[in-house]
């Protein structure tokens, strides 16, 4: 893996993400890249389910939100330091994903998609009623938690670098799985699940495993994100729109590709950010986003990577 050019491309992306805002202490750029990191992490992990195994998961936000809740709650109520809280969030949510997965992975197609929507709504409604997590008011953590990092300003940088690391880990994970036997099995499931099972792919195990794996890094990113916000509430933690956006990103970039999804996430965040803050487009940003998406779905169904591959066939050798 280390010898392949793509390994170094990912390393370069991580380096650029880490270095760009750090040069000249560009905080505004950092904040924009924080969201880009979140989108890349969410979309890349969603891509394991969607692009590889062909399962439409509207519930990726549940991993993010639950990760955030577990982490913030441990920091707030039990005074845990950040790192163990994050790990607890990652492993806890993965374990939950395994339990959810065992139930709903028997479903296929639209039914699976619907069940994941049900899980998002159900978990959000649960969090709104669960008093240890502050119910619908959520949890505030005092700015004092940033003290161990040397103050809020320093803490934000530490958190940012951690998020870049998690994003990088997501890309390596996507890449590693894609070039493994496990990944091949997933792609086979995505093509034709019954045929894959007949060919000897242990489909139930693979599906449960990928669902579980795809929960880990989003949970950690959720923990970092809401720790950074110092505030978490159900409507933000389990916002169905973010899940939908992650799916749109996979489409935009080209589902099943590592580069495409990462690039799609980055472009999407920049575009949304631009539309939202542009004085010209602000009133119609939803409409414009809708029209753009429709054009992409109708005329560029294989996404950005499909377009790049067809225009520059040689890139296929380098990119994944």
């Amino acid at each position, binding site marked *: 893996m280390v010898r392949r050019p793509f390994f170094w491309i990912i390393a370069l992306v991580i380096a650029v993400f880490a270095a760009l805002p750090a040069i000249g202490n560009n905080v505004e750029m950092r*904040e924009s890249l924080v969201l880009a990191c979140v989108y890349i992490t969410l979309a890349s992990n969603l891509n394991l389910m969607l692009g590889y195994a062909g399962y439409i998961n509207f519930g990726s936000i549940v991993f993010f939100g639950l990760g955030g809740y577990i982490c913030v709650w441990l920091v707030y109520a039990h005074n845990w330091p950040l790192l163990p809280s994050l790990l607890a969030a990652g492993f806890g949510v993965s374990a939950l994903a395994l339990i959810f997965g065992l139930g709903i992975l028997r479903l296929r197609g639209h039914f699976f998609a619907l069940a994941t929507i049900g899980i998002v709504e159900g978990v959000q409604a649960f969090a709104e009623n669960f008093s240890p997590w502050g119910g619908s008011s959520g949890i*505030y953590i005092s700015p004092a938690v940033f003290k161990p990092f040397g103050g809020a300003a320093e803490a934000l940088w530490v958190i940012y670098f951690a998020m870049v690391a998690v994003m990088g880990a997501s890309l390596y994970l996507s890449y590693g799985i894609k070039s493994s036997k496990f990944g091949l099995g997933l792609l086979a499931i995505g093509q034709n699940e019954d045929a894959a099972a007949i060919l000897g792919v242990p489909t139930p195990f693979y599906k449960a495993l990928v669902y579980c794996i795809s929960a880990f890094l989003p949970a950690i990113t959720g923990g970092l994100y809401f720790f950074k916000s110092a505030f978490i509430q159900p409507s933000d933690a389990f916002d169905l729109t973010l899940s939908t956006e992650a799916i749109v990103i996979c489409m935009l970039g080209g589902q099943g590709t590592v580069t495409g999804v990462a690039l799609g996430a980055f472009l999407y965040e920049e575009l949304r950010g631009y539309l939202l803050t542009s004085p010209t487009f602000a009133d119609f940003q939803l409409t414009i986003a809708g029209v753009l998406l429709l054009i992409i779905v109708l005329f560029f169904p294989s996404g950005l990577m499909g377009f790049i591959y067809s225009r520059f066939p040689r890139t296929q050798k380098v990119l994944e």
Partner: protein
Amino acid sequence: MKRLYLLAAAAALIATPAFAQNTITIGFTDSVTGPLNVDSLGQTRGYEFWRDEVNAAGGIKAGGKSYKVKFVSYDDESVGGRVQQLYTRLINQDKANFLFSPYSSGLTAPAAVISEQYGKIMIDSGGAEEKPFEQGNKYLFMVITSATHYLSGAIEALKEKDPHAKLAMVYSDDPFSKDVLAAAAQQAKAAGLDVVLDESYSPSTTDFGPVVNKIISSNADAFLGGGHYSDGATLARQMHDQKANMKWMSILVAPADDKFAELGPAALGVTVPSQWEVQVSYKPQFGPTTAQFVKAYEAKFHAPPDYHAASGYTDGMILQHAIEQAGSVDPEKVTAALNAIDVTTFFGRIKFATDPGHHGLQVGHKMVLAQWQMINGKLGRQVVWPTEAQSANLLYPMPASK
């Protein structure tokens, strides 16, 4: 991608005038889209109305200079997800000197985290929840009465009319409404009133049929609850449609909007805790009187101001006052001036708590209770409580449903 950055940078350049030293920039987000749009719009109009008046008068004068006020605002889509990014942008890219709050407690809380991190003063007229003020914040100041006191007037009035009233409390499952009703429940118990139902509903609820039946089953004769605009108005209409026959109904936020009149008979007799009404007559130490404010506002927007507009205007007015007192736009000096403020404006008295456990919380301002009554054959709001401020007598029990 680069092109987008260039575009954005170019836009920022064009938008920033060269004589920046005589301009102060105030940043905020408002809900151009999403469910909070109606209430948020009122607040934004209040902000803008203040800005236009200040600039027309030559700007804010402090330390021998005069500063024109410039706004930068973004759509927060009524969700918290982007609020922190947008406030960070307002501070770092748009170089906002001061901040105003978004609308609603749920959005103000994440915004406050950012304003604290960067040491920017944020004046809050949109979030009444108290929790953000218990985090040891130094730069957050609330000009409105906090959630804890929203319904205290209603409970006093109710106790006077019927000391044995049975109360049903049903409210939206959001931070603000929960905070308001939790405090109200305590005040009701302290007043010896009987709370027979205490429940929250999901903010996305569209049909309150089962809820209304539950209220009827609880044998309550007084109702306190609601949340924001849509749910409150729907609840009022269904209470009326299902002939719940309450003697008393107090609903948060929704009835404070003039559009509430569209409900027709369902609106009659409903009371609403209000930060401010057009009938109040505080004697301002500076700024417009209520009559002047209402007149100018109506001339501009062709509609009477609601309390969101008034509190939004007050945000600006108080900031302006503090800057003028401080004689500087330096955040620390303005903060000190804000901490020292104790004034009366057309909006009422303004004074901030200064103890570390509640710093920035409003302790001077008092709410009034308004009731929808027939005024010359048309539905309108009258101030009915406290009695010394009332513009009409409280109707109790409220006119029966027909």
